[in-house]
């Protein structure tokens, strides 16, 4: 770490020296230079820093591998022949011991010897590697310094390096998507090796507990995801029944009726609602809404579960009202004023204008907004984790407790667990389903706007 910083300092020093040399060459009239002094500075700094840093990181990466090889080669025969995990554990312990930690196995002479050679070789690696990197950097810096000249074109190479860096940064965003797809897909495929794909997709029994003993009751875990899908859909449906009309109508009121002052106060209210963390909604659902529904249900003789789908759905609906409303608002605002004026000019009332002219014209945008809201509701996690149930329940009754895809992902993965049981991998299969469904909804929504939106004027 400190050695890396030394190399960075070297590059900075070389930058200053390069810039200074460029200025001094001109005797103060920097306008005679082809490239501005800063570029000369960057040029030498890059010439020095790039090879030095690359060599240093190469040493850091490859060095550990070489040290492992050397230590293994020096081990007594039976350990060297040991299986991979045992050897790996021995090496890890030796490294821990070398670093002053406490190893997991007892300290043996072999381990001490290995640890000694570890610390010895690591020191060697650091100093040889650092020396080589420093030397390389100094030589490169010297060569580059000598090439600084009034007519030297240093701007072009510096800019080219910068563009490569920018390209690499842009690639990260693509790699993230690829990372999501591959990491989730890879684990999901491992899951489908153990559980048939169709059983997962169409099975109606979900109980992911894998028994510790063979003869335990319910020893075979069942991974039929249909109850999770129906639970998710039920809660999403309730949420959309709340958020759809309320969001649509408040957007209509704000765009068509409200005067600018009211609009200026109502918009921030919606934005506050949109900015509240979902964990707060979850707490609200569990602490306020669910008990209230339970009492109201008891009052009229209905048995409402304390983790009912209704409570989670209602609160989730509240959460996506601003989302629906702002997307609908955009769609309504995009309808040209001509249409509105023409309709009103023909004597239609505002209500007729809205329902027969503006909403039909904005329909693709509104439907796209609803689809995005559905995708949001499906992927929402905290509200359902805190307010919906854990047990899979195949029902359409909103007063009962249901569980959702996201709840199961969280319950399967929170806490320590080994990484290759079907239970853990099931979470990735669910995650993949979730990713594909939300991605599909987004693409359909975008398509819908592109394809069906009328182009006015």
């Amino acid at each position, binding site marked *: 770490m400190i050695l890396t910083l030394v190399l960075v300092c070297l590059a900075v020093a070389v930058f200053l020296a390069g810039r200074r040399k460029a200025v001094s060459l001109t005797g103060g009239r920097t306008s005679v230079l082809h490239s501005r002094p800063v570029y000369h500075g960057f040029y030498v700094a890059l010439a020095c820093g790039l090879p030095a840093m690359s060599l240093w990181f190469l040493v850091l990466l490859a060095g550990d591998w070489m040290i492992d090889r050397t230590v293994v080669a020096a081990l007594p025969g039976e350990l060297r022949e040991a299986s991979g995990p045992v050897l790996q554990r021995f090496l890890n312990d030796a490294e821990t011991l070398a670093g002053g930690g406490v190893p997991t196995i007892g300290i043996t002479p072999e381990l001490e010897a290995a640890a000694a050679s570890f610390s010895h070789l690591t020191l060697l690696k650091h100093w040889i590697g650092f020396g080589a990197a420093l030397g390389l950097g100094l030589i490169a810096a010297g060569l580059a310094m000598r090439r600084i000249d009034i007519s030297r074109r240093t701007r072009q190479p510096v800019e080219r390096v910068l563009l490569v860096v920018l390209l690499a940064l842009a690639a990260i965003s693509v790699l993230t998507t690829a990372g999501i797809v591959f990491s989730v897909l890879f684990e999901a495929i491992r899951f489908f090796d153990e559980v048939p794909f169709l059983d997962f997709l169409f099975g109606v029994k979900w109980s992911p507990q894998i028994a510790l003993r063979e003869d335990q009751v319910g020893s075979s875990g069942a991974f039929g995801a249909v109850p999770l899908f129906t639970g998710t859909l039920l809660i999403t449906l309730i949420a959309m029944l709340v958020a759809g009309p309320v*969001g649509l109508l408040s957007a209509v009121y704000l765009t068509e009726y409200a005067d600018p002052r009211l609009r200026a106060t109502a918009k921030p209210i919606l934005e506050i609602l949109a900015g509240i963390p979902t964990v707060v909604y979850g707490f609200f659902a569990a602490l306020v809404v669910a008990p209230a529904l339970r009492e109201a249900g008891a009052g009229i003789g209905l048995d409402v579960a304390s983790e009912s789908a209704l409570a989670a759905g209602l609160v989730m609906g509240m959460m996506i009202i601003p989302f629906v409303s702002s997307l609908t608002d955009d769609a309504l605002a995009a309808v040209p004023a001509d249409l509105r004026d023409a309709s009103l000019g023909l004597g239609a009332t505002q209500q007729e204008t809205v329902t027969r002219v503006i909403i039909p014209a904005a329909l693709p945008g509104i439907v796209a907004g609803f689809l995005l809201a559905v995708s949001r509701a499906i992927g929402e996690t*905290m509200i359902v984790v805190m307010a919906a149930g854990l047990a899979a329940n195949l029902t359409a009754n909103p007063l009962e407790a249901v569980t959702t895809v996201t709840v199961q992902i969280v319950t399967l993965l929170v806490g320590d667990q080994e990484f290759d049981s079907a239970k853990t991998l099931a979470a990735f299969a669910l995650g993949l389903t979730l990713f594909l469904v939300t991605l599909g909804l987004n693409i359909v929504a975008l398509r819908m706007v592109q394809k069906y939106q009328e182009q006015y004027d």
Partner: protein
Amino acid sequence: MTDTARPMTSVHLSDSSRGRLRRRYARERNFKIVSVSALVLTAVFLVILLGSVVLNGWSGFLTTKLRLEVTYSAEHVDVDNPANGNFRMIVLDGLRERFPDVTERRALRALLGIVSNQGAWDVRDALLDNPSLAGTSRELWLPAATEVDMLNKGYVDRSAPEELRLIDDRTIAWVDALEQDGDLATVFNWTFLASGDSREPELAGVGGAVLGSFWILLVTFVVSFPTGVGAAVFLEEFAPKRRWVDIIEVNINNLAAVPSIVFGLLGLAVFLNVMHLPRSAPVVGGLTLALMTLPTIIITTRAALKGIPPSIRDAALAVGASEVQVVSHFLLPLAMPRILTGAIIGMARALGESAPLLMVGMVAFVVDLPSGPTDPATALPVQVFLWADSPERGFVEKTSAAIMVLLVFLIAMNGLAVYLRQRFEIRW
């Protein structure tokens, strides 16, 4: 004209027409009422939500302390080694003196229970601060146990049958006696703001979670801001306008709509299982949230760059700036207010996010304050989630109070973003 004297009988004034008009106007009125009530309903939701948080949470910022005279007797404290005294016994002796009629063993234990476990440590700290106290008596304000705190704040129903209450009649009598003598005080709960998590509600605080969130956001910002701005600059200014750039664009827009929990799965699979970074550490949480924030930053940066009029670009190119210089000397500085606004809003969203953090193991019970991005830590919203699960009444107010702290941070960040936008944004 012969019919001028007759009343006008245009079709528009026939009875059926008037009826239709009335119905149309009624529909108009009803529609307006329905849509305004949708808006009102939304506002009511917000009021109930925030109201229930504030009503439940304001008392979380207060705590109950009780005054007790303690004696650092030689029996329990060694003058040469003051750190090693039996401070619980000192507290118990103080209580015994205060309530001399309590003698039975079980009752004494219950009596000791009205003082928080922290009490003995506070007695010890007072001695360590001032070693000359050894052998003398001192009046100290000690934190009360959570049951006493709840009673004092009025959350215990005194009329309920004793066995259904958290606190028995005997203890209530003690507390009332303390209160009558002015030995019970409700003070601001500094512990809540400063300390880490605890199993005891009266000792639990959001300090650790706030620090954890700080480290997470620091990592998120350091990773996502340069990456996002660089990627956006490349895509907007330098990328050849070809098909694959369109694909990347669609891809980034879709990435912005991926559920946050999927990013958590990515973080779990890549950072924990492939790269073996430490579990529960802010660095992993920060990296995961950075990937989630990246699309937001890219999208706002591109919008900001697009918003700069072409005349600026043309003018800079005309006086001989290279394309890179146009970006670094003109476009980026001009776009910076909008980029920063977008980045702060993205950070605010990352601050409120908890689902991906659950995936990368940031749900641990962490007592110590994290002092760096690799220490085990938890985040403010995750702390809310953890406390919301606790059955004790004392944690309900703490949960709401933690939500209030979280909302204060969010409002501050959004306020800063609005300020930046209004103060620095240039209208072309």
